[in-house]
């Protein structure tokens, strides 16, 4: 009887969570909050207790917060067996065991995978190993980069003007460090927010003294005889003398450890249903393996059942809570994860927030405020409905636009609002790059298929 099993599971079952960051911690807290009294094991590849990442590219780089002082506030005691600094290396689905790098095997009755993503490193390995070349994802990255910035570099080169790259450029300028920002697309943030808003971001960078170079690629990094980076070569034939390079080329999902396990895990993440249950490679949903956070990819009914994979702080929290709840539940009590995507960034003193999926939008209007003043609400339309919104220093209004998205309100919205300027009302192309041209930095990755699509297939990792 499932009821008996669940009672037993709650009382003395074994739950293992792989991934000891935001999603893992919130899931553990929810499990305990919902009465799970069995054994709980938390596995993390970093040697640290769960910490918060958003400050790493902001306050930490500005020297305002110590990188080792961004612990996540605890909601409750989780009473777990912490295996930190030991990555998981494999999964035995049939035997219900997680294999660890130290050779140990951890058995489970229910498993939650929350291994997140890591920064994509510079593809040229020798160049990536030059002293002065950084990525920024974890606490160690932030410690090393902040130390180097404090040493007063002549110039910093940031490769990639997505959110992380833009925040790093902003932090450098605030510390009065010369910075060059190289972007393959036509403007910063173009992948996430499109060219119209990207142009505003570009102005922000330039006015704050960033040497912004768009539509260029970095073709190579050059080191000196001591193995320190000294210059970068660009596709337009120019080069940049620099002693610090920060590679911000987006993220890679941490799924390699699942290769060959039979779980539906690949470079786009781990596919799961709306209740956070993972699919195996045959497209059959598992009943004992759950997924949450950046590594998960789940269908969202509001967005045409597309499989969304979101690198959003709020999504990680909400999905972890849903997954943990569902792990302890019978099918009728399970909840779907229907979080509306939401995201924030801070750069050059501007608060940027978005809801919905702007990158699905084809058109944009400026519903409130103005692009020229850089304080505005941009609303994205897709096939005649509101699909996303972004605010620059106008975040108080976002719940309203979220409601429009949730209720599939028509685009363009026709009603009067406060601070509406006539020039903003004409829908224009949102200017997203051609998806066939590679770019980077979108925080929302859309992929997958409608459940009605008979051709639904799963491609394992390449």
């Amino acid at each position, binding site marked *: 009887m499932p009821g008996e099993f669940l009672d037993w599971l709650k009382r003395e079952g074994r739950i293992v969570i792989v991934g000891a960051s935001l999603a893992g911690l919130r899931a553990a807290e929810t499990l305990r909050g919902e009465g799970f009294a069995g054994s709980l094991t938390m596995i993390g590849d970093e040697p640290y207790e769960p910490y918060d990442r958003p400050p790493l590219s902001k306050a930490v780089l500005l020297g305002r917060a110590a990188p080792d002082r961004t612990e996540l506030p605890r909601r409750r005691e989780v009473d777990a067996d912490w295996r930190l600094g030991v990555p998981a290396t494999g999964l035995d689905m049939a035997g219900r065991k997680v294999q660890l790098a130290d050779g140990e095997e951890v058995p489970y009755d229910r498993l939650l995978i929350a291994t997140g993503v890591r920064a994509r490193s510079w593809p040229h390995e020798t160049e990536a190993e030059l002293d002065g070349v950084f990525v920024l994802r974890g606490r160690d990255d932030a410690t090393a980069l902040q130390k180097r910035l404090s040493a007063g570099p002549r110039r910093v080169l940031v490769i990639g003007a997505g959110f992380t790259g833009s925040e790093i450029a902003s932090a450098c300028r605030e510390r009065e460090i010369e910075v060059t920002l190289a972007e393959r697309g036509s403007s910063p943030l173009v992948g996430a927010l499109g060219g119209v808003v990207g142009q505003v971001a570009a102005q922000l960078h330039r006015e704050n003294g960033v040497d912004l170079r768009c539509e260029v690629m970095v073709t190579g990094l050059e080191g000196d005889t001591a193995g320190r980076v000294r210059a970068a070569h660009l596709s337009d034939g120019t080069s940049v003398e620099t002693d610090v390079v920060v590679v911000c080329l987006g993220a890679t999902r941490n799924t390699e450890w699942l290769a060959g396990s039979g779980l539906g895990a690949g470079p786009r993440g781990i596919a799961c249903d709306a209740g956070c249950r993972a699919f195996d490679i045959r497209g059959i949903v598992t009943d004992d393996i759950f997924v949450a956070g950046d590594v998960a990819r789940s269908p969202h009914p509001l967005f045409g059942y597309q499989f969304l994979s979101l690198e959003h702080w709020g999504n990680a929290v909400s999905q972890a809570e849903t997954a943990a709840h569902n792990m302890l539940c019978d099918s009728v009590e399970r909840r779907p994860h229907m979080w509306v995507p939401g995201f924030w960034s801070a750069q050059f003193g501007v608060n940027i927030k978005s809801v919905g999926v702007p990158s699905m939008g084809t058109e944009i209007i400026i*519903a409130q405020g103005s692009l020229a*003043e850089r304080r505005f609400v941009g609303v994205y339309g897709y096939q005649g409905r509101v699909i996303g919104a972004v605010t620059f220093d106008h975040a*108080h209004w*976002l719940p*309203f636009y979220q409601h429009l998205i949730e209720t599939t309100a028509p685009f363009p919205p026709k*009603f009067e*609002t*406060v601070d509406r300027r006539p020039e903003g009302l004409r829908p224009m192309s949102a200017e997203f790059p051609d998806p066939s041209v590679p770019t980077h930095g979108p925080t929302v990755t859309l992929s997958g298929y409608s459940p009605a699509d008979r051709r639904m297939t799963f491609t394992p990792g390449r």
Partner: protein
Amino acid sequence: MTQAEGSLLRQILDYSNRHNPYPLYAELRKTPVLSEGDGAYVVSTYDEVLSLLHDPRVSSDPRNMTAPGGPELGQQEEPGLPPSFIRQDPPEHDRLRRMTNASFGPPHTPRRIDEMRGDLGKVVSGLIDGIGNTDRIDLVEQFSYPFPVTAICRLLGVPREDEPRFHGWADTLAASLDPMPGEDPTERNKIAEKARTELGMYLAGLIDERRKDPKHDMLSELATRHGPDGVMTTMELLSTSALLLIAGHETTVNLITNGMLTLLRNPDQLQRLREDPKSVVPMVEELLRFEPPVQLVPNRTTLADIDIRGVTIPKGASLWLVAAAGNRDPKRFAHPDRFDPDRGDIQHLGFGSGIHSCFGAPLARLEAQLALSELARRLVNPRLLEDPPEYRRNAVLRGPRHLPIACNDIRP
């Protein structure tokens, strides 16, 4: 309000219900969006109030109101001054509020409020030291009224020797917001007008001094700061400082008084606060839900037809958002009529929400926390002498006019 003689809103405004409007709020919530039939719409449930506070089709600028405004609430702006940002919409609102905030809070002045902690703690101690006869204390007169006025003086930079004069003006102006029934208002209005003029001239003089010789206070910064939004004109400065003065104390008086009243009605919580001063933080939050000093937001209007809960609020309507009713919405808060600082998620509407959310919230929180924890610690066996106490007339800024209490002794 002609045909709605016995309407719920009329009953809520009726003074005889002032001491306990909550049963009426419960009645009101049965119709979450209530048309009063004279162009006024009353919204009383949590989700709906919250959504309208974030709705860009809702305006705070009275010029957008085309329907009759509903009952008069004595909430006028200072005559002769441009409207303060509380009665404006973006972008003007945003500009003024941003410029004011640059001198008040993060990111430009992150520590201003926290730096006041020690000074305000001394004011609290001084007021409690001066209580005297413990057989009958009027907590309002002797404590919760003088404290916020002193606090706002310190914040703005009103010199100590001028504080008595300032108290006098503030008293008069506050009284003018608190109409007395059966009294000819002419004389009182004359007195209020005089106080307003004198206060305006005093502030203008002070601003002038601070422009020449800036000090570490908010008036100096407001008068001298050149930010990306430029500088404030003298008129803008006057309406902003008048707003800070009035909004900055008339509300906190009620927060502190309502707080002490609630604690005296819940002796176990008072005991807990005495033993664990840190518990004051969730207690003040729960107070802002349970007995918010600002009960409703009456001065909004709609820029477009708004469909909500099956009702279309037409463009230009007068919109009343009853935050205090939303705060006790059982759909949002379990056992809403219970004072329970331990409820997990106290996302109250006590400070409003959205772009007009209470500007002074950090200061109000600090004042209430300092006041209540110190009163709890020092008053020995405090008790209410009248329950319910006599309330002020005002239905919007609701709180007792006097709170007579007694205690056995005052601890050092």
